[in-house]
């Protein structure tokens, strides 16, 4: 039932492209612009990264499977580790499996809409790496990220999109 509801939302984005009948598994991909125009994602500063992480080829164009994946991970039922894993991928802008300082700077700028000065942004990034980097290599790996998430009690409720 949930899946049907998501399917109808997916279809609503582009009724002419998405067929009603999925039994023969058509390869239909919706472009990023349509996904990014959904009301749930429209004003989210990370919408592009979210679409890229869940899309098949990393370009933001999503099939129905990717769409379902995305909303299932972002739902309230997804376990914490899964959410942490995907959150890590979202914040990793250059896709190198580490959140390095440039990734962090981009994240902070997106969070504050460029209202902090570059020195402040740089200071914030340095302090974040200093705090969260456990193995001391100057970057955050997935394990560092998960270790930090454990200490944040409200991660589960903030990393959640209601649809």
């Amino acid at each position, binding site marked *: 039932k949930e*899946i049907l509801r998501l399917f109808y939302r997916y279809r609503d984005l582009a009724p002419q492209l998405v067929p009603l009948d999925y039994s023969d598994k058509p390869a239909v991909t919706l472009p990023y612009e349509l996904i990014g125009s959904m009301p*749930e994602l429209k*004003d*989210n*500063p*990370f919408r592009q990264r979210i679409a890229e992480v869940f899309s*098949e080829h990393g370009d933001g164009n999503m099939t129905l*499977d*990717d769409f*379902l994946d995305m909303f299932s991970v972002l739902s*309230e*039922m997804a*376990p914490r*580790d*899964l959410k942490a894993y995907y*959150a890590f*991928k979202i914040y*990793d802008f250059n*896709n*190198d*499996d*580490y959140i*390095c*300082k440039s990734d*962090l700077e981009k*994240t*902070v700028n997106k*969070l*504050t*809409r460029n*209202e*902090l000065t570059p020195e*402040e942004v740089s*200071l*914030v990034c340095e*302090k*974040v790496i200093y*705090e*969260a980097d*456990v*193995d*001391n*290599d*100057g*970057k955050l*790996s*997935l*394990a560092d*990220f998960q270790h*930090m998430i454990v*200490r*944040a009690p*409200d*991660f589960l*409720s*903030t*990393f*959640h*999109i*209601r649809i």
Partner: protein
Amino acid sequence: MSQPPSITLHVPEGSESDGQEPSPDNERALHTSFHQLILEQSSLIEAGLELELQERSRESPARLATPDPCAMAWPEPGQGEDHPRYSPASLQILASMPSRTIGKNLGAIISQYCNRTARLRRRSSRPPLQQLCRTARPSLRQYDLETDPATATLEEKRSQLVKELLSFPPSQRSHMLLTMPLNLAEKRNLRRQVSGHRGPLRQHAHHWAPFSPCGWSKFCVILGCRGLWYRLLFLLRAAQPWHYALKQIGGRFGSSVLSYFLFLKTLLMLNFLSFFILLVFVVVLQAVYPPASVSPPPFTGLELLTGAGYFTHSLLYYGYYSNVTLNDPCSSSPKGSVCPLAAPPLPYNLPLAYLFSVGVSFLVTCILLVYSVSRSFRESVGSSAGDLAIKVFCTWDFKVIQRRSVKLQCENICTQLKELLVERRSRSRPQSRCQCLGHCVVMLLAWLLALGSVSGCVLAVHYIWEHVHMVQQEQQVQNSGRWQQEAILLVLPLVVSLLNALMPHLFNLLAMWEKQDSPVTQVYMATIRNLILKTMVLMLLCYQWLSRSVVCSTEECWETCVGQDLYRFMVMDFIFTLLDTLFGELIWRLILEKRLKTKRRPEFDVARNVLELIYGQTLTWLGILFAPLLPAVQMLKLLLLFYIKKTSLMRNCQSPSKPWQASRMSTMFITLLCFPSFLGAAAFLSYTIWSVRPSETCGPFRGLETIYESGKRWVLVLEKSNPNITWFAWVYQHLLEDTSLLFCMSVILIAVIYFNVQVVRGRQRVICLLQEQIVNEGEDKAFLIQKLNSVWKQRRRRF
């Protein structure tokens, strides 16, 4: 934590750009090269060439030419060490390491989860040391080196994972599948394989369906319950009052100002609970069965200020409440006759109810306060490290979709980050001895001044009270008008509230003159002095009320008199808070803008306002016994205060220029609420119940020695009526009245606290050790990779 710490490396950034992306197709090629290198390395060691290699690796790095153009030296972020040049084979290996391929390599994910499930199945975090090979590295001892996942193909890995999954019970299986970060197609494939082994293929399109009927229904129930719980939580959150207003305040002014409003909300909840308990058990019943009382004087507006007159013989005060059992048929029958044995229609012992509901409301408040204090201690102590990282990654609420709310959130996060930065940046620089001494002298002077002014205020209050009492006696002799009589009652509350409003400003000025190192210390100093002032004044007032030497000595019903006094204090406090907001914020802003022509606006002084709230709440708690409806008055006051303060804040104030950490301040506030304020009120109440003689003519405890005696009498009555429950009376006598039990309990409590503190300390030490171990592992790995690289180069040069 059965997982070994995953280790990362000082690896050059562009290692992926060597052109050979590890894709699932190339896996076999990559891993065989690793395998080959291991063989090479082991054969080299056997040949005893290690020494030779060590000599060779000490040569200058320039001679170790790498022909591959893409093995360049990439700059290390912030490290200045000589960057080693990795050969393409080493880079391929590095690129295919499990910790690096998590996001990309399907096979790596599958093998990682295979290992995890295997370890879960074995249910042992560590095999016993005797069974392990001594030469294995510590972090590798847990691995089953025979089943090296590096040599398997994707299909083999999948089948291994399926095999592992099959060994689990169905519900756990589906849970494991849920937690795997694979995409939908992969999961569907796996599930199909797993269920295909068991029986006919299920044509179910549902994601989370397990594989047996009764497990399915149980799962459905659990899922339904969880859904219901989440929906309830969401409703609770949505139904919270002032949710948007608080977000707005937090977004514009930061969490320090927000903590004031949150504290106000907490107080409102506490008052609501007390009020509810008293309402249900005492007030409503007395209202339904009103006692025969004198006709009240006509209502004039002044009653709202003085609480006397019309309100004297009303539900508001202690004097109204009857001391009989309500609705008791025996009381209506004539004296001397036998009480009918028919079942009474629920007689209600009002004095007992009064005593117990006051006690229960205090107990509930105590439990809630202690719980909030412990929770905020935990949050403020534990969250100081790692705060910034959590703020950056976990505070963005993805649920927020409205444009305005998104903008608010951005502002909020921006302000919070700035706050944290400012706090981290302000570290005290070491001072010279002379400066230190000067600083000490200044501090001493400031404290002397503060304490002197506090004692001056207390003496002033005492003398004014005696003077008012004399004037009152004169008035009674002269039989002057009601207006004058009631107006004189307002003088003392006026004076006390005036002092409470003016002195904190003086203390703030004093703290600014002292020039402390950080704004936090400044605030703490001013707050402590303010607190001392309020505590002293309240203690004097309590002493006067209980001794009845000055006030209410002429009254017959002294409890009502004390209740009225407290009501007047509360109303005056409210009026002065309003005046303070008006003058301190609105008019000050107008002066700054129009006269002095500066762009600066007044700032919202959080600590002073919070102390005013605590003072008001203390008055309420002191007065609960004497005026059961006082919590309702306090609730009304808090509601009005919220809206007035919020409006004034939005119009007149600016964001704090020196933002500081709010969580520690809110811990301090709630601790202040609990310890001096609540404990003081509880002590006052206990003393009143245990030792003070209630008045003879009014109230539910008239004619008794102490209020507590009603409880004792009830226990005796119980004992007499039903001999089976003498144990209850015995328990009551020995537990509640015996002080040695309390002593034992406090000793046990202290021991438990000490034990917990030691456990926490031990755990922190373990965490430090583990962190060191992780860093060491990282260095080990770097060393090994370098060694491998050098070996490979030697091999290449030789052939």
